[in-house]
């Protein structure tokens, strides 16, 4: 393996991953737009190699802030995690459009809300993964989605703990959604493990 740690990625590697992220988030925005029947744009995707503390800073600072998250595990020729993080504002925008309801806080979520948000996360993640697997021509199977509402810091430690023996830093590929002109601060993270990252880059001819 050429890359043994995310920190070893060079500019070209980062560019390639940004391109993949761009295609993935583009497709995710399209499915969100179809679902909501609203105009959805995305901001230019960013690729960051961050440690835990930097990741928390980068997403907005407060480790104790309660956020929602949907997680899907990738298996097959690429192993890793897909994580979609969102705040209450984003969730309510979706709920209002889909079900005509909104919730004052995450604690007020009922089963319906949890189920709906898991499914939204799943659709967004799956369209992302489908788009980039088509591009790299690799076979990936996805797990059923799982969602959680918890402190931001605790959710971000999930991938860090999962890959904690391989690396202290992770690659975050993110883009914000812009729904009808309003930017929502959410995060769509693609977190391949190190072997899979090498696999992707090799497949795309980056040596």
């Amino acid at each position, binding site marked *: 393996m050429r890359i043994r740690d995310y920190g070893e990625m060079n500019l070209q590697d980062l560019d390639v991953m940004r391109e993949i992220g761009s295609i993935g988030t583009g497709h995710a925005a399209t499915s969100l737009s179809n679902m909501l029947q609203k105009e959805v744009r995305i901001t230019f995707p960013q690729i960051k190699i961050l440690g835990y503390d930097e990741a928390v800073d980068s997403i907005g600072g407060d*480790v*104790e802030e*309660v956020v929602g*998250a949907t*997680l899907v*595990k990738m298996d097959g020729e690429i192993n890793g995690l897909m994580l979609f993080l969102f705040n209450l504002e984003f969730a309510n925008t979706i709920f209002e459009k889909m079900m005509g309801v909104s919730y004052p806080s*995450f*604690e007020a979520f009922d089963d319906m809300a949890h189920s709906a948000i898991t499914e939204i996360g799943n659709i967004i993640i799956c369209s992302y993964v489908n788009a980039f697997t088509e591009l790299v021509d690799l076979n990936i199977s996805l*797990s*059923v989605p*799982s*969602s*959680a509402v*918890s*402190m*931001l*810091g*605790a*959710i971000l*430690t*999930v991938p*860090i*703990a*999962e890959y*904690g*023996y391989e690396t*202290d830093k992770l690659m975050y590929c993110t883009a914000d959604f812009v729904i009808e002109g309003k930017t929502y601060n959410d995060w769509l993270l693609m977190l391949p493990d190190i072997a899979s990252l090498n696999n992707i880059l090799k497949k795309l001819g980056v040596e």
Partner: protein
Amino acid sequence: MKLTRGQGEIITYALGSCIGIVFYDPVLKLGALLHIMLPVRQNKDDPNLLKYADTGLAETIRKMTAFGMLKSRAIVKIAGGAKMFSISGNASFGNIGERNAETVREILKREGFRIAAEDCGSNYARTMSLDVATGDVVIKTSGRPEKHL
């Protein structure tokens, strides 16, 4: 790991699958709070001792002992080890919290420390703080009342 004596408060935020471990000596009013992420340091070249339960606990116990903590007086409390996500059909995913908690209990037992109180497991994040003047350990979670261990 943070360590202090006399007065003040030590906090570790948003423990998910991680474990917070408090050591407190009520006579010296000496306290330490360790935050570990994984059970065992597998790569012996990793300089980050405090990330792992085995090396982190050894280091904390060594420091506390150097500051005068006696094993017979030590009050140990642990919290965290939640399972943040559960994927149906994949039971092994995300049980790192449980493994962390087991490893910490095992090491503490082997080292001869009794766990006075614990708040582990379930699926929510915790913020843990220790008031060094009183030895009071508070667990804060979102949407639930504060808990004193």
